[in-house]
């Protein structure tokens, strides 16, 4: 057995060798040896394990060592950083510093603190962001790298940026400037300004920008400096439109207030409680002469208050400051003031104490009232003046109220009326003074006052004594100062004497008028009474001339004729004058050939001139229109008078008749017609007198030259009637020039009445009825008519004439107007209306007044001849009214002769061919329509209808100048109306029809040709 060495040794040493071989022992020793062996194995295992652990331990140790070093290093670092980061650290004891635990605790504390701070900071940032985001200003923060750090939504909105703030952060602002730029009024300037601000990096606050839609933004630029280093900048933009607007409004209102204050017509001055001037408007400058700059800060005493009021002003101010009261405040007072020149003048001033922000100041409104003062004074003086006038002029003045009761009366009224003033008050003037129908008049006047009308009237009244007086009363409504009618004022003047004179004058005038009428009647009568015998004288002289006379007898007859004709001309002149004075003279207007008028006059007067050895030269300007319109007779009369006058007063030399045109218009010519003679002339001073009646410069001349003394008067009156002017220039001894200027309308040659050819005056065989009561006149007429081979039947008055006419028809009737039994007018009416005769009736009248002529014509006479008549006139007139019968008889003979006469149509149409043609066409149509209708009416015996048809065409026939049937037409109209004489109606109708149809044919040719 192999035992363990140790065990072996031990057994060897301790166990006897006997035992050693014991089996029991050997089994024992074997077991113990097994344990030894196991122990040995365990021990080896143990060793190995220990070795391994040792190795491991060494490694760990090594690592730890390194770690430690590192820790050491980091602690070192920690210390360093602690020293650096935290000032508090240095305060820590050195001993403690080595205490890592303390440090760590400290640091841990610090960190906790910091975390706290950080948390707070974050909250703050968040708060700020929210704040900035919600701020009503646009905020843009940009860092130094021109990167947006912050922007709020509001900025995006107001700058019209289309990005959200989150998008913008981190971007460049330049990206968005384009959006914003267009918003502003001057977009380029906006951008430039931004660039400028950015380059300066100086704070800019309160810049106002205006957008194109009139909003305003206030923009601030704030560069952000931290420790003097700019780290970025902030833009802030706020919409201040409202503010700007209200500011503008405020400015405007302030401006307006200032303008109002300055333009006020009152001087406005404010002073503070110490009396210093604080405001001084423009008007104050004007009124007081002081400039605003000169007075501000001064006291009123130093400027505008006159010396004597200075103390009062100071006291007043003091009194107010002490008591808060001032007797002159808050009302209008008048005070004197001085201007800068020291001139004193009155002002109206109101001082208003005002309080603003606890400061008391006084505002004074002042007005220069020197003008007003002057006016007031003037008014006072004037009032006094008028009061004096009323008192001194003895005009009775009363005031009555609305009930007509006297409220006031002055002394003059008292003396006019005879009452005492005290008695008058309370009286009713209408009841007291006025009587009878005048009451109504006065009431009417009072009504007028109520309407506010004032007037002056005259009224008879009774004064206190009951005497009749006439008063002129000027009444006017009386108003109180509110314009309410309170009564009326009457001013009374006693005009009794004037009124009496007026009444007398009135009756004188009446008398004068009656006298004038009597004169006219006298003239008319005289004219008739003288003419009748003169008619005989001239007529018989004419007859006598026809006898075989000796030369001497012939000369006597001739002289008698001249004398009687002169007498006639005097009567004619007197008649003319009285006609003119009675307004009876009227000027006819008809076309005439001017040259003919002149030559008529010259032809008549030339022999007379030659007889005296004078030359009569007429000279008509060739500019004078050939045909003019006017009254030939009167024009000739004027020329006869003027040239006759010259002839009378000229002994040698010549008489020159000149006609010149002064003015030539389309419608009229202004002519100057002058008669220049080389006669005896007269003083120019007398020249105007020649137009007076019966005047010649020297009474001796009258005897020498004779004359009616009316010629020039008539001439002047006639020229005035023709709207002309006459002018005399004369020099004694060398001659006279009388010229007149008249306007004459231009006429047409077509309108000239053809002068009847003298051959036509063959009236032999004509049957004349002469109605005349005066036997001499009858004989004169019969002689003349017999001389021309007329058959004359006489009648001495109207009744006789009518009796004769019942049985016999005549070609013409000559009818005296004034006759006994039945005068010519009545007879004519009877002839026309009862006898139904159309025989022409010529009036023979000695009364040449127009009224008489009109009466004749109205009665149905055809024409008139004034007695004494010129033989030719009578014959010519008779032939004019009788010859047409002859023409009618010759109608057949003159078939080709035109039945119509368009002269008057041409004259009416002013020679306008279109008008003529139109009228002819109308006429033809009318005739063609009427004639068959009329014929039909005739065949049914409807004479009245026929009469109407005839009546209808009569004016046309007259217008077309178909004269041959005019009389027949009249007759036809008349007898068909009566409807009794069918035979005559039929015969006249067919005669007319023939003529009309012929005329129509001729007219047709006329318009075709």
């Amino acid at each position, binding site marked *: 057995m192999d035992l363990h060495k140790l065990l072996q040794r031990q057994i060897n040493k301790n166990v006897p060798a006997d035992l050693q071989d014991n089996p029991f022992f050997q089994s024992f020793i074997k077991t113990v040896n097994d344990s030894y062996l196991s122990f040995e194995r365990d021990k080896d295992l143990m060793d190995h394990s220990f070795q391994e652990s040792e190795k491991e331990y060494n490694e760990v140790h090594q690592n730890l060592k390194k770690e430690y070093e590192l820790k050491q290093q980091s602690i070192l670092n920690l210390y360093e950083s602690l020293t650096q980061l935290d000032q508090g650290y240095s305060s820590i004891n050195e001993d403690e510093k080595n205490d890592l635990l303390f440090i760590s605790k400290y640091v841990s504390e610090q960190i906790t603190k910091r975390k706290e701070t950080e948390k707070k900071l974050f909250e703050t940032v968040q708060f700020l962001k929210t704040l900035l985001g919600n701020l009503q200003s646009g905020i843009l923060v940009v860092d130094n790298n021109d990167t947006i750090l912050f922007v709020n939504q509001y900025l995006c909105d107001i700058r019209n940026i289309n990005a959200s703030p989150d998008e913008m952060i981190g971007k460049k602002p330049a990206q968005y400037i384009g959006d914003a730029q267009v918003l502003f009024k001057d977009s380029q300037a906006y951008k430039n300004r931004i660039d400028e601000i950015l380059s300066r990096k100086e704070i800019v606050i309160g810049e106002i920008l205006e957008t194109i839609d009139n909003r305003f933004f206030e923009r601030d630029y704030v560069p952000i400096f931290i420790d003097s280093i700019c780290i970025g900048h902030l833009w802030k933009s706020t919409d201040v439109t409202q503010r700007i607007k209200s500011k503008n409004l405020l400015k405007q209102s302030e401006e307006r207030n200032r303008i109002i204050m300055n333009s006020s017509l009152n001087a406005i001055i404010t002073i503070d409680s110490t009396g210093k001037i604080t405001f001084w408007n423009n008007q104050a400058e004007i009124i007081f002469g002081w400039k605003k700059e000169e007075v501000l800060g001064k006291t009123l005493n130093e400027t505008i208050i006159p010396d004597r009021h200075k103390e009062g002003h100071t006291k007043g101010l003091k009194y107010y400051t002490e008591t808060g009261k001032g007797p002159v405040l808050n009302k209008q007072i008048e005070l004197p003031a001085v201007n800068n020149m020291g001139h004193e003048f009155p002002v109206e001033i109101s001082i208003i104490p005002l309080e603003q922000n606890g400061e008391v100041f006084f505002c004074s409104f002042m007005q220069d009232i020197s003008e007003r003062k002057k006016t007031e004074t003037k008014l006072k003086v004037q009032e006094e003046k008028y009061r004096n006038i009323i008192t001194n002029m003895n005009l009775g003045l009363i005031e009555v109220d609305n009930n007509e009761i006297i409220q006031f009366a002055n002394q003059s009224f008292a003396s006019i009326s005879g009452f005492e003033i005290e008695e008058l008050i309370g009286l009713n003037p209408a009841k007291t003074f006025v009587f009878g129908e005048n009451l109504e008049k006065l009431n009417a006047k009072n009504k007028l006052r109520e309407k506010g009308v004032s007037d002056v009237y005259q009224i008879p009244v009774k004064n206190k004594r009951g005497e009749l007086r006439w008063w002129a009363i*000027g009444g006017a409504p009386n108003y109180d100062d509110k314009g309410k009618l309170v009564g009326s004022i009457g001013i009374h003047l006693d005009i009794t004497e004037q009124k009496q004179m007026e009444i007398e004058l009135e009756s004188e005038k009446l008398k004068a008028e009656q006298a004038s009428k009597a004169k006219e009647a006298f003239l008319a009568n005289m004219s008739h009474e003288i003419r009748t015998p003169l008619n005989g004288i001239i007529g018989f002289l004419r007859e006598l001339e026809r006898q075989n006379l000796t030369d001497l007898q012939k000369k006597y007859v001739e002289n008698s004729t001249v004398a009687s004709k002169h007498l006639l001309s005097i009567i004619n002149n007197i008649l003319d004058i009285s006609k003119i004075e009675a307004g009876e003279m009227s000027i006819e207007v008809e076309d005439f050939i001017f040259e003919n008028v002149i030559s008529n006059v010259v032809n008549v007067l030339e022999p007379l001139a030659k007889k005296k050895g004078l030359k009569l030269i007429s000279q008509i300007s060739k500019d004078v229109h050939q045909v003019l319109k006017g009254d030939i007779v009167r024009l000739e009369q004027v020329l006869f008078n003027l040239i006759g006058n010259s002839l009378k007063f000229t002994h040698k030399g010549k008489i020159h008749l000149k006609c010149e045109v002064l003015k030539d218009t389309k419608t009229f010519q202004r002519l100057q017609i002058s008669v220049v003679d080389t006669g005896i002339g007269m003083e120019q001073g007398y020249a105007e007198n020649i137009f007076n009646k019966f005047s010649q410069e020297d009474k001796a001349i009258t005897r020498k030259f004779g004359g009616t003394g009316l010629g020039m008067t008539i001439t002047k009156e006639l020229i005035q009637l023709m709207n002309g002017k006459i002018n005399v220039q004369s020099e004694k001894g060398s001659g006279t020039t009388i010229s007149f200027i008249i306007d004459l309308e231009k006429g047409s040659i077509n309108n000239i009445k053809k002068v009847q050819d003298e051959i036509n005056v063959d009236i032999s065989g004509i049957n004349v009825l002469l109605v005349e009561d005066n036997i001499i006149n009858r004989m004169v007429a019969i002689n003349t008519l017999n001389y021309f081979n007329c058959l004359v039947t006489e009648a001495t008055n109207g009744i006789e004439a009518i009796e004769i006419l019942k049985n016999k028809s005549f070609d013409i009737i000559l009818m005296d107007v004034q006759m006994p039994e039945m005068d010519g007018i009545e007879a004519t009416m009877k002839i026309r209306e009862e006898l139904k005769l159309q025989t022409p009736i010529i009036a023979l009248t000695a009364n040449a007044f127009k009224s008489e002529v009109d009466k004749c014509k109205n009665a149905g006479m055809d024409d008139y001849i004034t007695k004494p008549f010129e033989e030719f006139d009578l014959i010519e007139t008779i032939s004019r009214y009788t010859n047409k019968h002859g023409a009618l008889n010759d109608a057949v003979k003159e078939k080709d002769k035109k039945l119509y006469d368009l002269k008057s149509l041409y004259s009416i149409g002013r020679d306008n061919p279109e008008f003529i043609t139109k009228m002819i066409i109308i006429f033809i149509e009318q005739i063609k329509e009427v004639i068959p209708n009329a014929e039909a009416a005739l065949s049914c015996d409807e004479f009245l209808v026929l009469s109407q048809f005839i009546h209808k065409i009569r004016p046309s026939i007259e217008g077309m100048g178909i004269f041959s049937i005019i009389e027949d037409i009249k007759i036809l109209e008349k007898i068909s109306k009566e409807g009794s004489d069918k035979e005559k109606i039929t015969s006249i109708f067919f005669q007319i029809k023939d003529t009309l149809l012929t005329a129509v044919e001729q007219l047709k040719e006329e318009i075709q040709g």
Partner: protein
Amino acid sequence: METKTQFKFFIVDDDVFCANMYNQYLVNMKYDDLTHYSNGSDCIANLHLKPDIIFLDHNMEDINGFEVLKKIKRYDPNIYVVMISGQENIETAVDALKYGAFDYVIKGNDVYEKLELIINKIIAVKEQLKNNYPGFIKRLLSIF
């Protein structure tokens, strides 16, 4: 002459010839505002045109001249109506004037002169009416 008062004329006459004549008369007198109606009804229907002067034929087929005259006068009494008639009848003339005609003219060759006279009369009357307004009454002692 040159400065003539212008009037508006109506000529009422069923006789075209006469109407044309009057028309020409008035043209000659330098009036140019002239209207012609051939019957009374047309004239009355056109009164709103405010004629100043109407020349009215008395004897017309549709309505009697007097009826027309009365109607005109009822419409506007200030229109001057001049009756023109072929009848030389005093009664007609008096009636015309009674019904308010300004004047009465008898047809004939002297109508022209008559028309001119009448127009002048109308001018004078108008002038007179104008002047008749109470002038400014000078206020005596106007201080009150």
